[in-house]
C-alpha cells in the first residue's frame, strides 16, 4: 500500500516538472519582465542590477531550478497588472472557486450517477429517453449560455436569485466562506448549476455506457442464471464493476470543474481564481498565468493519486502479491 503510493507520487513528478518547465518558459521568455518592472526611464546599470537580482544572467537550468524552488514555496513574484504577490492574489480567491467547484461536483455526482444507472438499466423507458435527450442538449449547450439563461429566468424575470457575486461571506481565518450566510448560499445556486450541468450530463452518459457494457458480460449473465434478484445483480454486481472505469474519468472531470470555473466565474462575476486568470490572459499577466497553470496541474495530479487509491480499494486484481484473506 505504502509502496504503491510512493510509486504513484514518483510517477507524478515528471508530469509536474514538465508543466513547471512550460510555466517557466512562459515566465522567462514571454514578454520582458525587466522592461515591465522598470517602467519607462532606466539606466543601463539599473537594468543590469535588476537582471542580476532576478537571476536572469544565470544559465537556463539554474534559472529553472530557482523558479521551481520558488514555486514549491508558493512564490511566483508580482502580478504585472496588480503589482501584488501572485500567491497572495490566488490565496484570496481560491476559497470562492473551491466552494463553487465543490457544490458543482456534488451536484454532478449526486444527480449524474443515479441518472446514468437508471438509463443503463431501463434503456427503453420513456424516462430514459427523456434523460438522454436532456443530456444531449446538456453537452451541446455552452456553459456560458446556460448561465445567461439561468440569470435571465431566475434573476431578471423571476427575481428569486442574485445574478452576480458571492453574497455575504464569513471569514474563517484566511478562508472566506459563503456557506454560512443565507445570501451566500443563494448566490451559490445558479453558478453551481451552470458549472455542474455539463459534468452532470457527461457523468450520466459515461455511467450509462459502462453500465450497458457491464450488463453484457458473462458474469452478469451467470449472476442471473444463479437466480440472484435483480437488485443484487444490478447494484451488487453491475454497479460495482461499472465503478472501476467510471472512477478514473469522473476524477478527471471533477478536476476539470476547477478549470471550467473560468467561464462560470466570468458570467456570474464570481470573485474566484478563474476570473483572476481570464483577466490576466486579457493583459498577458504572465506570472499569474504560470502560477495558475501549475496550480491546476497540481490539482490534477492529486486527483489522479486519489483515483489510483480508489481503484486499489475497489479492484482486488490490483492487490496482487498481498496475502490471502480480508482487506
Amino acid at each position, binding site marked *: 500500500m505504502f509502496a504503491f503510493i510512493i510509486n504513484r507520487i514518483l510517477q507524478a513528478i515528471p508530469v509536474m516538472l514538465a508543466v513547471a518547465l512550460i510555466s517557466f518558459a512562459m515566465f522567462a521568455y514571454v514578454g520582458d519582465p525587466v522592461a515591465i518592472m522598470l517602467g519607462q526611464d532606466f539606466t543601463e546599470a539599473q537594468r543590469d542590477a535588476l537582471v542580476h537580482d532576478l537571476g536572469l544572467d544565470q544559465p537556463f537550468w539554474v534559472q529553472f531550478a530557482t523558479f521551481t524552488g520558488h514555486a514549491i514555496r508558493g512564490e511566483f513574484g508580482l502580478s504585472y497588472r496588480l503589482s501584488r504577490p501572485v500567491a497572495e492574489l490566488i490565496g484570496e480567491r481560491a476559497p470562492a472557486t473551491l466552494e463553487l467547484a465543490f457544490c458543482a461536483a456534488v451536484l454532478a455526482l449526486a444527480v449524474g450517477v443515479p441518472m446514468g444507472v437508471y438509463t443503463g438499466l431501463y434503456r427503453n423507458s420513456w424516462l430514459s429517453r427523456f434523460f438522454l435527450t436532456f443530456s444531449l442538449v446538456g453537452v451541446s449547450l455552452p456553459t456560458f449560455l446556460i448561465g445567461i439563461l439561468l440569470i435571465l429566468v431566475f434573476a431578471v424575470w423571476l427575481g428569486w436569485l442574485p445574478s452576480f457575486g458571492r453574497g455575504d461571506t464569513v471569514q474563517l481565518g484566511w478562508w472566506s466562506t459563503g456557506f454560512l450566510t443565507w445570501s451566500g448560499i443563494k448566490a451559490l445556486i445558479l453558478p453551481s448549476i451552470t458549472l455542474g450541468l455539463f459534468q452532470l450530463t457527461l457523468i450520466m452518459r459515461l455511467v450509462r455506457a459502462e453500465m450497458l457494457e457491464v450488463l453484457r458480460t*458473462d458474469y452478469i*449473465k*451467470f449472476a442471473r*442464471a444463479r*437466480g*440472484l434478484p435483480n437488485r443484487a445483480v444490478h447494484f451488487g454486481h453491475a454497479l*460495482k464493476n461499472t465503478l472501476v472505469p467510471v472512477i478514473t474519468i469522473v476524477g478527471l472531470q471533477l478536476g476539470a470543474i476547477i478549470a471550467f470555473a473560468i467561464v462560470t466565474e466570468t458570467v456570474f462575476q464570481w470573485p474566484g481564481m478563474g476570473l483572476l486568470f481570464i483577466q490576466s490572459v486579457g493583459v498577458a499577466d504572465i506570472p499569474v498565468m504560470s502560477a495558475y497553470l501549475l496550480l491546476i496541474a497540481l490539482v490534477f495530479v492529486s486527483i489522479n493519486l486519489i483515483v489510483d487509491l480508489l481503484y486499489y480499494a475497489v479492484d482486488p486484481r490490483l492487490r496482487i502479491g498481498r496475502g490471502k484473506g480480508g482487506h
Partner: protein
Amino acid sequence: MSNTAPLLQVKNLRVEFPTRRGTLVALDDVSFDIAPGEVLGVVGESGAGKSMTGAAIIGLLEPPGRIARGEILFAGKRIDNLRYEQMRRLRGKEIGAIFQDPLTTLNPLYTVGHQLVETITTHLPLNPAEARKRAIEWLEHVGIPAAAQRIDSYPHEFSGGMRQRVVIALALCAEPKLIVADEPTTALDVSIQAQVIALLKTLAREKGTAMMLVTHDMGVIAETADRVAVMYAGRIAEIGPVREVVKHANHPYSAGLMASIPPLDRRVERLAQIDGAMPRLSAIPQGCAYNPRCPQVFGKCRELRPDLLDAVTTRAACWLYDTETARG
C-alpha cells in the same frame, strides 16, 4: 426412454431473432425430453443452436431473441411463459447453469465465498454463517484444496480449471434438479477437461441431478451422456441413446459427424470430413437443411423438410426413414 415422467419437456420450440433483413429463425421445431437424473448430450457445429436451446430453457435468451412458438415444461409445469421474477426463483434453485469460460463467468471484484454465499442465501433458508459453512462444503465437494482458506480468495487467484470447479459449485449449491451445462470444458486445457467432466458426472450421479450437456466434443458425450441429440441449423437432426447414435447413426449428418472422430483403437490414414459448411440462418435451403451436403440426397429432400421419424434405434429427421410413400 424411461417410464418416469420427464423432468424437462421441450415441445416444438421456435426461437426467432427479428433483424433489419427479416426474421431469423434460430431454432425451429425443437422437441426433446430429459428424465430425472438423465444426462442428455447436445452436439453439433457452432451456430447449430445448441447454446440457444440452453438459454431458452433457463429463460435468458438475449434480446431481441424470443420464443415464437412451442412450450417448455419443467416438472410438468410450463416455464416458458413465466414472468421474470417467477423464472428468477427457478434459476439456480431448480435449474442451474454452467457457462463456457470460467475466466469470465465469475465477478472479478468479489471473493468466491461472497458469490457462493449470496447464491445460497438467495435460494435456501440459511443465515450467513450457515451459508458460509455450506459454501466451504461445496468447495470441498468440487475438489478445491484448503477450501476453508480459499473461500476468501478472489477469482483471479485461481487457475482456469479451479475456477470452473468454483462455477460448478455455484451452479449446484442450491441443489437444482437440472443443470444446463454449456460447453463446460471448451475453454479449459485439455489435461483439465477430463477432470472437470468426471467431477460433473460424479456430482450429478450423487445428487440425482439431470443434465443437459452442450458440447462439440464427442468424446465427452460418449463418456458422459445417456442420450444424445444432434443439432443442425437450428433443428434436431437425430436423437437417441448415446451408444446407438455414436456407433450406428441413422441420419447422414450424424453419421458424418461420428466418422470424423478419431477412433482410439486403431490408426487411420485420414479422418472422414463433411464437405461444405453449415448454412447461415439467413440462407437455409428449402427442404432438408442438410441436403446440399448430404451424400444420400434425393428428390424429396430438396422440397420438403423432414420431421423426426422413427429410425430403428433412434429418431432421425431424414426422409430415408419415411415409411409412407407420400406425405402432406
